[in-house]
């Protein structure tokens, strides 16, 4: 940009340079073109912008304009103005020229064409050729005639088209014309709007300078203006004040007042403070520039040898010619030696110099740098005190020690010698084991591998993941607070009602019991089956209905324990009774031959007044019940049921259906997704996820266990934790893989149950070793962050009966409280 500015200013600042006549102009143009070609050739490998600038500089000298295409959009308006005043300048200087204004106009037209050509050239490689062509055209055009007006017009339109090519609409182009007036030649001449110089404008620094040149200002004395600005507009004479004003001015001298008139503007010439300073300096004969006369001296010639010498003078001759003075002195010494006054290398005499000197290391081999892989042989152990021929008394063995040494096997001996004492060195016998010792040493050196082992120096702690302290992850269950006693068999099933007040348990004694959670008081019990164990107990998730589903043998019981108020009970009764009508309807015709999957029956009177409302009789033993979150559906799992292992029961219609046609293996557990229409089914090896809306298999998780015991779904639905009889608990992130994200091996025996907390980031696993492991498991909303699993607490309290420990666990719906059912016939509440 700076370059451009300089280039622009040139014609204005130096008008005589463009003054020569037409013939000269053409010549100079040719010269300039050649010059430019050279410049272009030289700068061929420069950047485009730079080449353009160069070209432009040259072109502007010849009053043409090759606009830099890259920022054409910014400069279009400016171009126009530029054209405008170029014309004026031309008019001003070429009065004597034979060429008329039409020629100028033609030149203007050329501008446009050149723009277009330039555009074309920008995309082509052969800049020079195009530029040559341009120049030729310029030459021809400069000598063109009036009668080429039509051509001019057409070219002008072409030029405007070319301009519109550069992202400025032609409508905008028209807008720039304020009005048309008739020029001196009688042709319409557009008068453009004043340019609003904005920040990016190049002409923002153009001042209203008087452009009348060397004409004395007195020539304008009679006119209201004092000259013309660069645009050819009149510069009006500033208003001169009245006599009173000038009197006032002379009384109150304004700052910078000189009493002179500015020749350029005709106004009072005012000097700034800096200018006054400058004038003062000149008057005093001081240095007028910005020079400090008292600057520190710079030591150009110093003792330091500079890398680049200050002077290029050759070394003086004296540096190469031997010194005569030195020769004189040397001759003096030589003379003294010849005369014998000085004896060189005179042997030193004295007792201290008489001793012969031996080179102790004369035959020493030069120290060799060992090979990089060389390992020096281990040195022999140094002899100790007791190996001396005359050891101190305390080293000598006592009689017992000597016997003991003699009795032990040579291999087992701690030391392979006994310290002995000799009165003198003369009496020391031959060293008996010398040969053997040498031999063993040789064997050691020969056979013992000397291997360089790379030892990894890693702090084992740094390999452990940074887990937060369990103290920071409170609350979690830590202590057994309530023990629910009363069952006379293994408690196999446990469930807490949605309000968190009533705990239901089912046991091998065939009873279902309901407990008050805080006090551990049994408030209701019923015997469902005298022979069969209660396998599963689940409260309906529907609040305010109080329905409890329990399974014993091949029967599923829907009970309404009489512990709730009337409203709840009525609602529960209505829900359970609503389906009797549906059940009475005949089954569809194609299924008429088939035996129904299960029968919905009314309970016996005995069961009825115990609180049971509906009994569903299935074909095989129902091991597990799981409710859908809305409380209308529940699944039952009977592992022996083959293709009818999983049944989905609907309470409102008293209807049961089997979602699978084929048996997929022994089904262990089936759960509904917490909020999606999906069913998760665990077989012995896999957890399969079925989409119930499309009735398709979505995913099959492979926990890598031989026999899964249980699994649970995270309340957000994207994670599954499984427990297996081979002691493992695995965490699956469904977004990651079908393989486990983490495998937790903390239990010593088979894992019986795993459960997630519905609200808090907690899960637990119960095992046959009688322990419950509580874990923290945060699942982040950020999909890039993997779940954080932290083992928190091992809850010990259930005793192991017949190698069965904790059989089932469940979490309190709100608190970090855990309920567990054990084979010892108790259920326990663990609180934080």
């Amino acid at each position, binding site marked *: 940009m700076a370059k451009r500015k300089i280039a622009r200013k040139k014609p204005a600042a130096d008008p005589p340079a463009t003054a020569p006549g037409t013939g000269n102009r053409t010549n100079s143009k040719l010269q300039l073109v050649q010059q430019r070609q050279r410049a272009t050739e030289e700068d061929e490998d420069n950047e485009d912008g730079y080449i353009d600038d160069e070209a432009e500089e040259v072109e502007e000298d010849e009053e043409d304009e090759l606009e830099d295409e890259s920022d054409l959009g910014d400069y279009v308006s400016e171009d126009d103005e530029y054209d405008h005043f170029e014309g004026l300048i031309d008019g001003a200087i070429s009065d004597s020229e034979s060429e008329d204004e039409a020629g100028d106009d033609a030149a203007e037209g050329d501008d446009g064409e050149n723009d277009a050509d330039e555009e074309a050239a920008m995309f082509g490689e052969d800049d020079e050729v195009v530029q040559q062509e341009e120049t030729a055209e310029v030459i021809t055009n400069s000598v063109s005639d009036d009668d080429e007006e039509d051509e001019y017009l057409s070219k002008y339109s072409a030029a405007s088209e070319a301009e519109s090519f550069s992202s400025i609409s032609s409508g905008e182009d028209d807008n720039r014309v304020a009005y048309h007036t008739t020029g001196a030649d009688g042709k319409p001449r557009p008068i453009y709007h004043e340019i609003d110089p904005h920040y990016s404008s190049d002409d923002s620094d153009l001042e209203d300078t008087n452009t009348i040149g060397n004409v004395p200002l007195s020539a304008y004395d009679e006119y209201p203006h004092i000259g013309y600005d660069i645009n050819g507009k009149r510069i009006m004479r500033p208003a001169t004040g009245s006599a009173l004003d000038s009197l006032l001015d002379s009384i109150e001298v304004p700052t910078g007042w000189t009493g002179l008139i500015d020749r350029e503007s005709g106004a009072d010439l005012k000097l700034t403070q800096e200018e006054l300073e400058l004038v003062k300096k000149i008057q005093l004969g001081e240095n007028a520039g910005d020079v400090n006369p008292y600057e520190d001296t710079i030591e150009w010639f110093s003792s330091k040898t500079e890398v680049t010498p200050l002077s290029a003078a050759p070394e003086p001759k004296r540096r190469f010619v031997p010194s005569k003075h030195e020769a004189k002195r040397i001759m003096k010494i030589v003379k003294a030696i010849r005369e014998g006054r000085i004896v060189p290398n005179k042997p030193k005499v004295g007792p201290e110099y008489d001793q012969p000197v031996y080179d102790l290391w004369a035959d020493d081999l030069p120290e060799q740098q060992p090979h990089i892989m060389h390992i020096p042989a281990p040195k022999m152990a140094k002899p100790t005190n007791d190996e001396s021929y005359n050891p101190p008394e305390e080293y000598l063995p006592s009689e017992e020690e000597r016997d003991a040494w003699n009795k032990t096997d040579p291999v087992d001996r701690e030391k392979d010698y006994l310290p002995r004492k000799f009165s003198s060195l003369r009496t020391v016998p031959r060293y008996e084991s010398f040969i053997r010792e040498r031999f063993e040493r040789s064997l050691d050196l020969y056979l013992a591998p000397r291997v360089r082992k790379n030892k990894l120096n890693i702090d084992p702690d740094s390999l452990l993941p940074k887990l937060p302290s369990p103290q920071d992850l409170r*609350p979690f269950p830590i*202590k057994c*607070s*309530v*023990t629910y006693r009363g069952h006379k068999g293994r408690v196999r099933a446990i469930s807490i009602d949605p*309000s*968190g*007040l009533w705990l239901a348990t089912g046991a091998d004694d065939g009873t279902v019991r309901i407990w*008050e959670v*805080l*006090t*551990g*008081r049994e*408030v*209701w019990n019923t015997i469902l089956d005298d022979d069969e164990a209660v396998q599963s107990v689940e409260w309906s998730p529907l609040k305010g209905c109080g329905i409890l589903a329990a399974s014993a043998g091949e029967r599923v019981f829907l009970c309404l324990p*009489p*512990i*709730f*108020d*009337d*409203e*709840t009970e009525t609602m529960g009764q209505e829900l359970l009774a609503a389906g009797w009508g549906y059940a009475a309807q005949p089954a569809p015709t194609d299924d008429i031959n088939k035996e129904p999957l299960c029968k919905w029956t009314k309970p016996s009177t005995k069961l009825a*007044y115990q*609180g049971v409302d509906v009994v569903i009789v299935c074909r095989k033993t129902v091991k597990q019940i799981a409710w859908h979150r809305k409380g209308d559906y529940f699944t039952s799992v009977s592992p022996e049921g083959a293709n009818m292992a999983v049944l989905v029961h609907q309470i409102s219609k008293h209807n049961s259906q089997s979602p699978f046609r084929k048996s997929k293996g022994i089904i262990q557990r089936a759960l509904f997704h917490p909020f999606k229409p999906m069913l998760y089914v665990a077989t012995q090896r896999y957890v399969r996820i079925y989409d119930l809306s499309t009735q398709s298999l979505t995913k099959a998780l492979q926990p890598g266990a031989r026999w899964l015991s249980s699994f649970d779904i995270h309340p957000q639905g994207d994670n599954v934790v499984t427990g297996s009889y081979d002691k493992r608990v695995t965490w699956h992130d469904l977004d990651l893989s079908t393989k486990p994200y983490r495998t937790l091996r903390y239990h010593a025996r088979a894992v019986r149950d795993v459960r997630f907390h519905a609200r808090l980031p907690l899960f637990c696993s119960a095992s046959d070793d009688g322990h419950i492991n509580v874990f923290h498991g945060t699942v982040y909303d950020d999909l890039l962050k993997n779940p954080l699993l932290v083992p928190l607490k091992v809850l010990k309290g259930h005793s192991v009966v017949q190698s069965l420990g904790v059989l089932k666990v469940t979490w309190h719906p*709100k*608190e970090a409280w855990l309920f567990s059912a054990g084979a010892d016939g108790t259920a326990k509440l663990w*609180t*934080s």
Partner: protein
Amino acid sequence: MSTVDVPAGDSGSSSDTTGQIRITLTTRDPSVAVPDDVPLYVPLALKRYGLSEIVNHLLATEKPIPFDFLINSELLRLSLQDYITQKGLSSEQTLALEYTRSILPPTFLASYVHPDWVSSVDVIEAAPSNVNAAPILSGCYDGIVRTWNLSGSVVSEFGGHTGPVKAVRWLDVNKVVSVGMDRSIRIWKVPAAGDQDDEVMADVLGSNGPQTVTSARIFAGHKSTVEDIAVNTETSRMLSAGADNAVGLWTTNYKEAPPASGSLSTREMTGKRRRKTTLPSRGPISMMDSHSGPVTGVIFDPKDHTVGYSVSLDHTIKTWDLVTGALVDTRTTSFPLLSIVALPELSLLCCGSSARHVTLHDPRAAADATTTTTLTGHTNFVVGLSRSPESEYMFCSASHDGTVRVWDVRAQNSLYVISRESKTAEKAKVFGVHWSKSAGIVSGGEDKRMQINRGTGLDVSSNSTQ
């Protein structure tokens, strides 16, 4: 300046037994004031007992009076050496000790056997003139409310609850109120004992057994177990805590009470048949249900009868304006709360929590501006609290760990631990406790017994009678 040489009877835990510290002794009780307020030098190894001996020595009492010592209104439970080490004080400073009469460790008096778990107890402080034969009230899990006299026999039985009774309170000398798992609140009229004295009464009991009352004024409105009841005789109001997350405000006057919204029907919960009986009942003045968990405890503010407090398993203490039934303040703690009692002189609310401790809250201050004191020591749920009738600083707590602990808010640890006298295999839970002036600490629990312990000493008269 006198140096009292006390034989180091109590073995100080510190090794430095030779060190001495300057103390000053003050008291607020003029009857046991030390003659002169001179500073003393005492061994650092001294504990409460040694200091008490010094005071007794200075008072020259013929019978030693036990004292407790306070430094900066904090009870001294350690030796002086340990105390100054703990506080980072120098032994060259003067310790200002304030002493008060200490209460004696509560001693076991009696156990009254019930047919089932005892859920709640209450004792009425009867005026000496009006001899109330049966000041002790107990609620039992068999659904029967009983009144007992101090000799351990049932005076009257109130049967009618169809589920376990969860809380009982004396309304006045003639009326009791009870709540239970059958979701009802019942007010019973105590049969007049007449002007018979105890012996005659005992004869009556001996001949006829306990008087049985079955008719009650029934109030209904809760949808689940009513866990607790608080009564205020001056305004004739009751507050109930329901497991259905509601706090009920009731009037004790049956005739004034609004009609019940729905007829209360009760069923035998343990019975063979689902028998439904509809009973006439009245409804609450208002049900305030902004708790999100079962309400476990409720009290009236002892100073302002229009304010009630309730605690819930949803971790909050809520303050209620009983005139408008509006919720005034909610204070959230970090654990489920199970019981509440107010210490009016200190403006403190003591709350027992499921996290095995008692927390002290000031209901006046903003919740985030105050630090709550936590008293730890129990090993299970703290389900019952009762304030001391004698000291404004003391209260006792009943816990499922089978103990009743006596606390002083000035001390970090409990003063005394009362365990169950009935030696059952497991620690029997204690469900309710009441500390009365006349009967002592009465507690009932899972061992089907109501246990009475008595430990007084603050009162000079009671002390002299011993």
